[in-house]
């Protein structure tokens, strides 16, 4: 089971084989790829898995999942007809558009996987941005993580799973043993790769077992382990096993002692064990490193931002944004889990037809109701607000301004329970802008992220506005209502392309401001300079925003000014 050419595709093939041997044990596959021929090649092969394939969709209701009354059949036959849910029997659950999965569905599917009733989830994640992906509650439980986004069709091939051989392997699976050392090594390696969830080494072990069963080994061997590490642990890595960040994959791995991190974790016994097992550890580590993407750190940063921003991946911003609101008139519709029947309107809709239906009907019933009489209650939803602070971190006063902005963010968050506002913070300085605090309501996270703020340099106002607009657009997609609060004291002097050109910088800033206004995002401009700056007033006009001069503002005044402007 070694991987001769170590290509992504070979790994996919090995992974599918392992999945076919132990579908329920491995939990499933998280396949990140856009819809297309490459992905189709993988999904075609799923037919060879030993369980029936069932397709879900991200907005599937409880009734379809867990079963319920078949209303149409019940109404037409006049007696209770029940329908079994998709989760009633073990199945391969194929979830397309997995990046749209709501936390509620994620929790249900995670529960289904946890119960060990034999379900296996194939999540087809079509996320385009790093921020869009399957909720972590699920990724944590699926053994295989594969990203095919960059893979050209030419490097793929038809996957043929040998069903007979796999069935034999499945029969052998229970007999496969794993040495105690194997288990320790996997756990150790997971820790070194910064994989904190304990599910990961467990899943890696099961994968190795499945691979050993395919190879006909009675015990898990090095090749099986290597492949399992590549499939399960490497994609979850959150750190390079060594301190050097741009460690080339082909370098010799240094022995484990020089790493401070490792040393900490390996107190006492652990240290000696890892030394004893150096060869196996080395081989596994090498395997993991070879598959770690070169831009791991950048990807991690994106992932982290996503986690904070909440994305679709479980922070639940959307659900909170869509509270139950003011009731509005009910409307014809289908009855499923998310909807509530408006009984009175349904009866009213059915009433005129009663005489005719009674004549037509074969049943003696006092009331004849058809599915198209159903009226569903509707509510007007009110979104949560997101306040995006865009803070000028340039020049000499940067530190104070940032500190006050941070204070204002924390005060607003502390009050946020009453109003349920979310806050984000973008800082701009030198030649670019940075999203320091992705939209959050968590005071814990805010403190962690805003502990150290860098300052100084030029004023790339346009970049700041650009990042703010991106954040605003993203959050709008999640059902929030974003507001941009710009805090600065000076003129733009760095253009979007990073050049120090005052005229171009001002032009870019105006362009971005127009774009924000066109998107319809409300905003405000807070001038924190000693003297009102005329260009900022003009910028505020372009944004269609109130211009608030607030020299030497402190956190308290800032937050109250912002609150006042928001409520105005």
């Amino acid at each position, binding site marked *: 089971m070694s991987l001769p050419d170590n290509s992504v595709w070979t790994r996919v093939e090995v992974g599918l084989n392992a999945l076919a041997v132990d579908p329920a*044990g491995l939990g499933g596959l998280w396949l990140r790829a856009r819809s297309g021929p490459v992905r189709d090649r993988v999904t075609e092969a799923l037919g060879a898995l030993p369980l029936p394939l069932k397709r879900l969709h991200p907005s599937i209701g409880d009734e379809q999942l867990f079963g319920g*009354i078949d209303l149409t059949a*019940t*109404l037409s036959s*006049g*007696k*209770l007809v029940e329908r079994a849910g998709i989760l009633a029997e073990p199945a391969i659950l194929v979830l397309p558009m997995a990046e749209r999965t*709501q*936390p*509620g*569905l994620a929790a249900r599917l995670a*529960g289904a996987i*946890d119960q060990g009733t034999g379900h296996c989830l194939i999540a087809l994640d079509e996320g385009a941005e790093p921020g869009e992906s399957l909720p*972590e*509650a699920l990724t944590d439980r699926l053994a295989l993580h594969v990203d095919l986004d960059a893979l050209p069709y030419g490097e793929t091939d038809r996957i043929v799973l040998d069903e007979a051989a796999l069935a034999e392997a499945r029969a052998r699976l229970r007999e496969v043993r794993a040495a105690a050392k194997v*288990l*320790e090594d*996997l*756990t*150790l390696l*997971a820790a070194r790769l910064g994989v*904190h*969830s*304990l*599910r990961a*080494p*467990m899943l890696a*072990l*099961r994968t190795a077992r499945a691979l050993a069963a395919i190879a006909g080994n009675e015990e898990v061997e090095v090749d099986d382990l290597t492949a399992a590490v590549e499939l399960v642990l490497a994609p979850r890595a959150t750190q390079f096993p060594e301190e050097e960040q741009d460690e080339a994959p082909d370098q010799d791995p240094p022995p484990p002692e020089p790493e401070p991190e490792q040393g*900490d*974790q390996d*107190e*006492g016994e*652990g240290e000696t064990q890892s030394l004893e097992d150096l060869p196996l550890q080395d081989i596994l580590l090498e395997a993991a490193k070879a598959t770690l993407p070169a831009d791991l750190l950048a990807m991690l940063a994106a992932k982290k931002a996503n986690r*904070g921003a909440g994305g679709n991946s*479980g*922070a*639940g911003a959307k*659900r*909170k944004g869509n*509270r*139950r609101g003011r009731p509005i008139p009910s409307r014809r519709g289908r*009855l499923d*889990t*998310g909807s*509530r*029947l408006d*009984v009175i309107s349904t009866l009213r809709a059915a009433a005129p037809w009663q005489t005719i239906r009674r004549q037509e009907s074969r049943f003696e*019933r006092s*009331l004849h109701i058809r599915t198209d009489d159903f009226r569903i209650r509707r509510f007007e939803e009110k979104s949560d607000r997101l306040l995006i602070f865009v803070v000028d971190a340039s020049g000499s006063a940067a530190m104070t301004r940032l500190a006050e902005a941070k204070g204002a963010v*924390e005060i607003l*968050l*502390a009050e946020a*329970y009453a109003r*349920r506002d979310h806050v984000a913070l973008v800082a701009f300085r030198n030649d670019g802008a940075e999203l320091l605090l992705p939209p*959050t309501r*968590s*005071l*814990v*996270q805010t403190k962690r992220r805003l502990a150290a703020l860098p300052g100084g340099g030029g004023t790339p106002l346009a970049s700041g506005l650009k990042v703010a607009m991106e954040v605003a657009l993203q959050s709008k997609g999640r059902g929030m209502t974003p507001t941009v609060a710009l805090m600065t004291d000076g003129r733009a002097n760095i253009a979007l392309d990073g050049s120090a050109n005052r005229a171009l910088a001002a032009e870019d800033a105006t362009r971005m401001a127009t774009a924000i206004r066109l998107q319809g995002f409300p905003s405000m401009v807070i001038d924190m300079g000693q003297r009102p700056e005329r260009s900022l007033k003009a910028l505020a006009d372009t944004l269609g925003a109130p211009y608030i001069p607030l020299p030497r503002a402190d956190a308290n005044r800032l937050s109250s000014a912002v609150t006042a402007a928001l409520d105005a």
Partner: protein
Amino acid sequence: MTQPFPFSAIVGQEEMKQAMILTAIDPGIGGVLVFGDRGTGKSTAVRALAALLPPIHAVASCPVNSASLDKCPEWAHLTSTEIVTRPTPVVDLPLGVTEDRVVGALDIEKALTSGEKAFEPGLLARANRGYLYIDEVNLLEDHIVDLLLDVAQSGENVVEREGLSIRHPARFVLVGSGNPEEGELRPQLLDRFGLSVEVASPKDIDTRIEVIRRRDTYETDYDVFMEKWRPADAALRDRILAAREHLKAMESSDDVLRDCAELCLALGSDGLRGELTLLKAARALAAFEGDTKVTREHVRHVAPSALRHRLRRDPLDEAGSTTRVARVVDEVLGEPA
């Protein structure tokens, strides 16, 4: 039917296990909130606890698990007095659950097919006399949280909707879990949880290996593993039952009451719920340890769990609330003996 992972076999996470045992001894403590990272055994512990708890006696087919017929709600129209033994209910409250599912609603099926106005009980009814488990409690929708607050407070679920007017008992222990990085809980809901614990992935490599080893044995060698841990679980169950008995005769001196009050005063926790929970938890711990009297040490031991989540939020405080509680406990009660 395979049994859940045994409670006694959970490695580490002592504070979480202790908190769950204490609520099992005295459900009046009012629930546990477990905050921490993924894959730290939160769900495992809750499911394991369910299997560990002694069964309850309830009227057969009673929707709210009443102990005797006169306690059954009249809308259930029960006549049989048959008492059955059933496991302590542990009801999952999934995210995205609808209000109807939680409180119960008009039974649409009966209304449409037979024209009968009947009540279809919800999750709160099923959780009566048991546990209500909410994973990702911090992501729960606001209106559901409001509902839960109300019911957890009154112990009764009142349904006034769609022409129904129904009430039934809903006394349950709330167990919530979540990851604080993804959002925080409102202080009002925090306060409803009796105890709160913070869990983290074990940092020590040997502990991690032990976790994996046990889990692996549980899966590959199920029978042997269960055989090995069954006695430990049974012993724990007996200890919990004994502690419940013990609890009735538990004495708590004025000194201990004073300790509780002083601790809460020093920490500035809102209301008196802090003191009450602290005392109850200390009594339960004393009972669990087989002591006849609550001592200062018991109070010290449960103080972090009982008070950690009741501090006033201080946006400018950089240290975590656990540190604050520990500091105040040492100040008020003196250094541990």
